[in-house]
């Protein structure tokens, strides 16, 4: 009996892996200078690299040349962090111009930014903040994304962010707000699963239900990462998305769910911003991501067969 179960599981895994190939799913890693040596010695196991675009906006020519050389060896995607596109304030032209220039130089597979605002009234927040989820910020984001698409020459994938605070002044749910922006801008989602997990934990919703409410056809790419629980002044705990820890199991479970739901190829990127483990450990997490994708694709196939 146990043998039959193992054989069935192996069959499902093989079918899932086959469907991953059909979908051309990819698993990559966030480029960090500290990881350079490990990345270059394992390029055969890394499908693509995500580069922080802002690090190269003011970079000397030799750094741009190095980035172009890197992009000639492995697929590269560019990830912006400083535009603040989800805002009722129009994005500054100079920020779009910098991204446009870098996209022209590097020719990435795609570029991405965040559903966040990062400044207001001339003051920099210093990080990604969730704007009030209202019709005004939804409209502002759609206008900014339309300008970004024209100026850069392609639409960005937009990432949902983690937030420790339930954004004050919100009149819409996170899910309705994100779905509304994606629909009006025709942009795809860079679905950060650790952010979904963290917000679910911090603000009391079910991350799986959240995934099912976002149109799965909009899942363009996926981030996975880890964080840590921090104590709140009221004695409870909230999850901080610090990218300094290994990817927790619930995030891999959400990845499986996303793969089961998505009808499109998925690009999964592991983010790590410090407290770097060995390269073997990062590669192992990327393998876990591939396994989760395979399980999800196999489930998706079963669901399709049932429908037929």
């Amino acid at each position, binding site marked *: 009996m146990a043998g039959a179960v193992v054989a069935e599981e192996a069959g499902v895994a093989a079918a899932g892996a086959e469907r991953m190939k059909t979908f051309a799913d990819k698993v990559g890693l966030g480029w960090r200078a500290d990881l350079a040596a490990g990345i270059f010695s394992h390029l055969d196991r890394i499908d693509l690299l995500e580069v922080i675009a802002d690090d190269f906006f003011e970079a000397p020519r030799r750094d741009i040349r190095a980035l172009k050389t890197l992009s000639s060896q492995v697929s590269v995607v560019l990830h912006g962090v400083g535009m603040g596109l989800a805002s009722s304030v129009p994005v500054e032209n100079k920020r779009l111009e910098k991204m446009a220039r870098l996209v022209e130089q590097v020719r990435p597979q795609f570029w991405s930014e965040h559903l966040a605002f990062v400044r207001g*009234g001339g003051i*920099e927040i210093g*990080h990604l903040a969730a704007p009030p989820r*209202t019709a005004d910020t939804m409209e502002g984001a759609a206008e900014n994304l339309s300008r970004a698409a024209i100026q850069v020459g392609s639409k960005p994938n937009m990432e949902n962010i983690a937030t420790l605070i339930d954004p*004050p002044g919100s009149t819409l749910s996170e899910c309705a707000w994100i779905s509304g922006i994606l629909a009006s801008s025709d942009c795809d989602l860079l679905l950060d699963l650790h952010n979904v997990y963290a917000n679910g934990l911090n603000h009391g919703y079910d991350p799986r239900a959240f995934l099912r409410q976002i149109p799965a056809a909009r899942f363009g790419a996926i981030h996975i990462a880890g964080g840590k629980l921090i104590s709140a*002044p009221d004695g409870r705990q909230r999850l901080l998305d610090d990218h300094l820890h290994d990817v927790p199991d619930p995030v891999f479970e959400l990845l499986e769910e996303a793969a089961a739901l998505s009808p499109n190829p998925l690009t999964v990127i592991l983010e790590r911003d410090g407290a770097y483990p060995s390269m073997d450990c990062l590669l192992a997490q990327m393998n876990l991501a591939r396994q989760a994708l395979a399980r999800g694709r196999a489930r998706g196939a079963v669901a399709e067969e049932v429908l037929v």
Partner: protein
Amino acid sequence: MSARAFEAFLTRIYVDAAARARFKANPRAEARRAGLSYEECAALEDTDWVGLEMAARSFARKRRIKRQSDSHVSYRGLLYRLFTRCLALFRRGQT
């Protein structure tokens, strides 16, 4: 215009500890002082106070890290420029 004023107000209470303290003490008065509408002032009374403090701390930490990183980068840049200037002078001396 009001949506922009609202974002500017949020930015201030995320970044400025004194403004945040005034806001916590009297949300409606601080929001009115920033020119927010009656509805916006009312909405701010439901603020997630615990989350506000945690987010503000997290943003402050990020700004601190960025400042350190920027000064490190500019120090490296200065060293690089100094090195290339010396190299150029050395080469000029040789020719």
